[in-house]
């Protein structure tokens, strides 16, 4: 993995106000992100996993500046700014981003290909839209460029003059990918890009994304709740729980020997499509607590089988458990032993 950084998130927070009452006063906040530190390296695919509502999409949207974080900062280290020279993009608006040439460099592909494409626009225009905003190509060149993009995602020129509803879910996701790569980006947030698709189509899209990453030298933030997909595509994986990153590790290490109890539970909970695999399941009690009133101390303590008094009082800080591995748990050193004793793994 190349060592140079492309994006850096520092203490990122996003709190959504909850309004209530007749006067629409703020009565509470949803702490969707509550202090996230994340370094993303050029050329990698960083997986971001966690259960729904833990803040994965909010993280992705913050990175490409679809909303303003409440606190913290985001640095972008573009090639054109020189090695190691970051730009703080946290507070920059659309116009400022465009002026710095950053806007087209950061892109996003959303989960639901049916709602992310405008149903009244021709495919040609959907894909051309982001480039049109960027540079003034002539109509002929534009069409050529769009056809080229379609070809890159496995579609053909014949699809130019059709509407989104004429395509299957998988093809629509290909169109969304074509639109994302149109501006020649450095970095793409893929937000559950295959979660709405069938397995055979999912495999097609995953392979497409992998080959595009190689040929265009892209960096991905791959957001999903599907752990086996993350295992297939990503180099490193970050595990989120209730607005925090609880563990970060190279994907192979994470799957081979997780440290955090939540990661253990997640991994043991995946139904494995293999009859010779006998799971040692760690079934967690209860539901994910509401991000409005997250539990004190370690947020996982209400469901953690190994919680102690200290977990309720004090929030664990991320510790470097091994080179390149971070874990936020008071008892991470004991966890493998505890899991073995309690669940016989």
């Amino acid at each position, binding site marked *: 993995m190349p060592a140079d950084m492309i994006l850096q998130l520092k203490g990122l927070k996003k709190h959504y106000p909850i309004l209530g009452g007749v006067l629409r006063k703020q009565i509470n906040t949803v702490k969707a992100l509550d202090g996230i530190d994340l370094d993303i390296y050029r050329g990698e695919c960083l997986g971001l996993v966690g259960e729904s509502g833990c803040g994965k999409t909010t993280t992705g949207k913050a990175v490409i500046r679809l909303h303003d974080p409440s606190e913290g900062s985001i640095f972008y280290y573009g090639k054109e700014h020189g090695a190691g020279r970051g730009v703080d993009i946290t507070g920059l608006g659309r116009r400022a981003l465009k002026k710095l040439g950053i806007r087209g460099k950061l892109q996003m592909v959303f989960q639901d290909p049916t709602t992310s494409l405008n149903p009244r626009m021709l495919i040609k225009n959907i894909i051309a839209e982001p480039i049109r905003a960027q540079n003034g190509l002539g109509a002929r060149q534009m069409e050529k460029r769009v056809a080229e993009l379609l070809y890159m995602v496995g579609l053909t020129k014949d699809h130019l003059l059709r509407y989104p509803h004429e395509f299957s879910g*998988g093809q629509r996701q290909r169109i969304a990918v074509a639109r994302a790569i149109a501006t020649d980006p450095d970095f793409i947030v893929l937000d559950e890009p295959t979660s709405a698709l069938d397995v055979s189509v999912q495999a097609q899209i995953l392979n497409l994304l992998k080959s595009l990453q190689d040929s265009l030298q892209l960096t991905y933030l791959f957001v999903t709740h599907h*752990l086996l997909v993350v*295992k*297939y595509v990503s180099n490193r994986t970050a595990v989120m729980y209730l607005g925090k990153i609880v563990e970060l590790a190279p994907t192979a290490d994470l799957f081979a020997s997780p440290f955090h109890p939540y990661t253990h539970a997640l991994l043991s*909970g*995946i139904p494995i499509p*293999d009859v010779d695999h006998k799971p040692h399941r760690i079934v967690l009690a209860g539901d994910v607590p509401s991000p409005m009133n997250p539990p004190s101390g370690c947020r996982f303590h209400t469901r953690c089988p190994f919680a102690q008094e200290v977990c309720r009082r004090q929030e664990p800080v991320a510790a470097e458990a091994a080179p390149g591995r971070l874990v936020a748990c008071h008892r991470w050193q004991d966890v493998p032993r505890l899991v073995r004793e309690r669940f016989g793994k």
Partner: protein
Amino acid sequence: MPKLIETRDLVTNFYTYEGVVKALNKVGLVIERGTTFGLVGESGCGKSVTARSMMRVVQEPGRIEGGQVLFYPGEDGQEAVELLSQSEAYMQSLRGDQISMIFQEPNAALNPIMTIGDQVAESFLFHRKKEMCAKVLEDLKTADLPWPGLKKLLEFFYRRAAADPGDRLCCWASRTPILKRWQQRLFREARRRSVEIIAALDIANADQVVDRYPHNLSGGMKQRILIAMALACEPLLLIADEATSNLDVTIQAQILDLLRKLKKKSISSILLITHDLGVVAETCDRVGVMYAGSVCEVARVGELFRNPLHPYTRALLDAVPKFSVSGQLKSVEGNVPNLVDPPSGCRFHPRCPLRRKICAQRLPELALAGPDHLVACHLAGGRSGSAQVWGGR
């Protein structure tokens, strides 16, 4: 194992504006007693329609056009009831009692303005009225009542209701002010049973949960409540249609764990419909794979995963990311066909890497290709020696 339910050549069509959707193309399945049968396939292949046809709850504009659904209520699996020719009243007494169904979308199945307890109790009141009246009658013997006449009166009503749940006089009394209070004890009994069954599903404070409304509960909790409702009358067959597909991994693990426990305790069979091969591998005994309205392969779960014979099954297994294997995922080209105008012959032939001339011309029948292993493919079975064609696996 004796059979519990069986479909033969089931054909269901939907008459839509775009044309006739030929959703089921002669579906034949057998579910045995005491087993969990998994039905897998990609979306739109007809899994839900199969289940709905079995229970005769196909949505508009669908019609069951042919075939048979045979239900074997007896222990030995000998005598069959053909469900498609039964009256709607018979089906109603069957649904929720001997066969129950839970769906993917719990919000659609729960009534938002009724408490959880009332909704669970409803299924007891519909199917178990007789039994519960007898129970109340029993309790009345030892009950202390303010005056003896009341006891007589209550006993009168409950005796009649226990003999015939649809008793005219009781129904009339239930609609008359003051008199309708005779039912209170029945309702209390239904509620007691609701709390009991909810508590049995590992839900803490069941006695408080029954007084809540669906919107106060999380997705996993709602799915448990639906399971509670489905299990209320200890059905012979539980149909779970993508019951865990919308849930998070840790919650799905809870629900699958629960189903496994319930399966051990009560003998009921489960028809588990899912698109997730992982869920199938872990929870099912036998598996049927569907593609575009046809069943293409049926086998025991170990056999299916180790020795898949149908090209579509192999394609599906190759396409899922796995835990222990890395390397490129193989993917089949193309998409699931439109069922208004399905491909001729074998419906998989436009995408099949092994297709022959005959595949486009003739529909392959589901036939034995090994012990307890059914495959619908022209290349399978003893005829052409499938193992050579595919080079083993």
